[in-house]
């Protein structure tokens, strides 16, 4: 299993009562709650954490994009990726840029090609639809989200693979000259990962494109089901998918004992699930963002968030893995065998978790977990048995 280190860069100093009062950490939580002195400290701590994780042997470092929220302070992920590009030895992934939110997708083709060149091909490109709340914040029509995504994607791939200049005549984007410099270092282009909350349209499309599908935070039963659907969609598209095309986005927290781990993680995990994430379906799934069937599926997956969650609830549903080294190894191995994936996108910091605790967690994961999974693949016997 390849275990990547994934950072959301939340505003960890946030006033949780302000989120409760606003109803969500997204869209309507006033940025008057942001203190740049604390924020500056956080940015530097988070970059330190990523460089440290790289030195500890994680497969790669992952940043992502979110807008107008305390959930993540990376509206422009390329700034963080740029800060890391020459400081880390492992892979560098932006998972991902929200294609429908931009008016010129070529800026993303340029930005990713630059990162791929600077890292000499250690870059992984992520394409996402953008989270529902961002359609409220950006004013982009969610009913156009999917066709805008598809057109932007096609344009970026063409810009990376076909010599320019060429003309792009689309419904949403029109360019007389498409001719971006630089072109990607990797040929034909960097690997493409697509994170999704489980929309059927997206799963099918990623399988058809033979890209890597990343399942965002969800109860593990739903993760396993989603990966089953992905494999079915790959078969429908005429091939057998590889476990390297499936990534589970999770969080791991390791302490000496299960009890100590639960006690130490509780406030940060509960803040993450209950305050930083929003439970408002209209905010997260605006109309038209997905087909009605997909919206109903994702609403069902998110049903677990309808009420406040305790740390125990979250662990019981297998959304994150917390415990002693032995417990974490067993749970992650069982998850890998059950859902047959080979990539773990692992957060070591989440919610309000402070810097020192993150460092201890990262060291524990590096010493106790990473070596055990380095050459581990999903148990083949289970595949044959099914």
């Amino acid at each position, binding site marked *: 299993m390849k275990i990547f280190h994934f950072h959301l860069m939340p505003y960890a100093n946030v006033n949780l009562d302000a989120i409760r009062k606003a109803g969500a950490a997204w869209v309507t939580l006033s940025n008057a709650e942001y203190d740049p002195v604390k924020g500056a400290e956080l940015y530097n701590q988070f970059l330190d954490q990523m460089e440290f994780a790289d030195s500890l042997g994680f497969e790669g470092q992952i940043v992502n994009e979110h807008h107008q929220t305390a959930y993540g302070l990376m509206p422009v992920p390329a700034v963080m990726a740029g800060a890391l590009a020459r400081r880390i030895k492992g892979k560098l992934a932006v998972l991902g840029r929200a294609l429908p939110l931009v008016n010129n997708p070529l800026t993303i083709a340029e930005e990713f090609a630059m990162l791929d060149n600077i890292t000499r091909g250690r870059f992984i490109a992520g394409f996402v639809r953008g989270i529902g709340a961002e359609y409220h914040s950006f004013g982009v029509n969610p009913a156009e989200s999917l066709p805008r995504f598809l057109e932007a994607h096609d344009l970026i791939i063409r810009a990376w693979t076909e010599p320019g200049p060429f003309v792009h005549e689309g419904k949403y984007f029109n360019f007389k000259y498409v001719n971006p410099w630089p072109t990607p270092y990797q040929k034909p282009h960097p690997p493409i990962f697509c994170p999704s909350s489980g929309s059927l349209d997206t799963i099918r499309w990623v399988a058809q494109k033979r890209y890597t599908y990343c399942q965002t935070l969800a109860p593990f039963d739903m993760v396993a089901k989603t990966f089953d659907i992905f494999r079915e969609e790959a078969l429908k598209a005429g091939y057998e998918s590889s476990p390297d095309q499936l990534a589970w986005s999770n969080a791991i927290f390791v302490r000496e004992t299960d009890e100590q781990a639960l006690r130490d993680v509780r406030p940060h995990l509960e803040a993450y699930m209950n305050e930083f994430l929003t439970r408002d379906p209209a905010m997260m799934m*605006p109309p038209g963002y997905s087909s009605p069937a997909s919206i109903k599926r994702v609403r069902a997956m998110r049903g677990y968030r309808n009420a406040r969650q305790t740390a125990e609830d979250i662990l019981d549903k297998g959304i994150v893995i917390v415990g002693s080294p032995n417990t974490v190894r067993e749970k992650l191995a069982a998850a890998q065998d059950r859902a047959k994936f080979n990539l773990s996108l692992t957060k070591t910091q989440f919610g309000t978790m402070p810097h020192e605790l993150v460092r201890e967690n990262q060291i524990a994961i590096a010493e106790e977990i990473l070596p055990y999974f380095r050459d581990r693949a999903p148990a083949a016997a289970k595949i044959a048995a099914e």
Partner: protein
Amino acid sequence: MGEWSRSVVDVRGYGVAVSEAGDGAPVLLLDDVLGPYGRDSFAQALSARHRVSIPTHPGHDGSPLPEWLDNVSDLANFYLDYLSARGLRGVHLVGCGLGGWIAADLATRDSSRLASLTLVAAGGLRLNGVPQCDIFLGGDEEVLRKIIHDRALADRVATETITPDTEDTRLQNQQFAARLMWQPRLHDPNLRKWLHRIDAPTFVVWGANDALYPAPYGEAWRDAIPGARLEVIADCGHLPRVEKPGALAELVTAFIAKQRVAA
């Protein structure tokens, strides 16, 4: 008062479902797309003296989404084609909410088949600095409470219409609303500059407590359309058809009757 019949009218290859009842001068009623819809007491009252036709908007309420639907003007042109396809003239066009927006856009393009135009809480304009509630944020029930003035009525409507068996339709209708009104939000920046072209007697009806398009919007419509008259219904939000169907029916029937006398 006759039964409501349902038929499908072919408009250049798109089969639009139309509910119809009554006898008399033709009334084309273009529905709002928010909240409950269908044959209610307002439409029933109009059908006592008129031939009332209520089409289901293409892409709305269970009807298939046509490939050509991108914006409200597409629907305005579609309903002009509908009037041609049926050979209708002397039509009293009544539009509520988004239906009013479509009706006004249609009338700026071609008023020649219209005997009159009635706009009820119509969308389509923007008045800078007049706050509007957000119909896309919050659950279905919360949205009804925002747009219906009387809280008890909003709760009753919510109980009646927000049920598991209407979930698919509600999702489709919300998607339809977003497609047409998300950006630019709730208006067409090009509509206002052509409203002077409307060449039909125009009646504007507004709820005094409309939170989506507050009362100044009614005045803006009246001022922008030559000769238009405005009537404001007290204790009424954005859905006069649901909130004050009797008062609305009386106003609209009287307005249409006056056109006939004048003609």
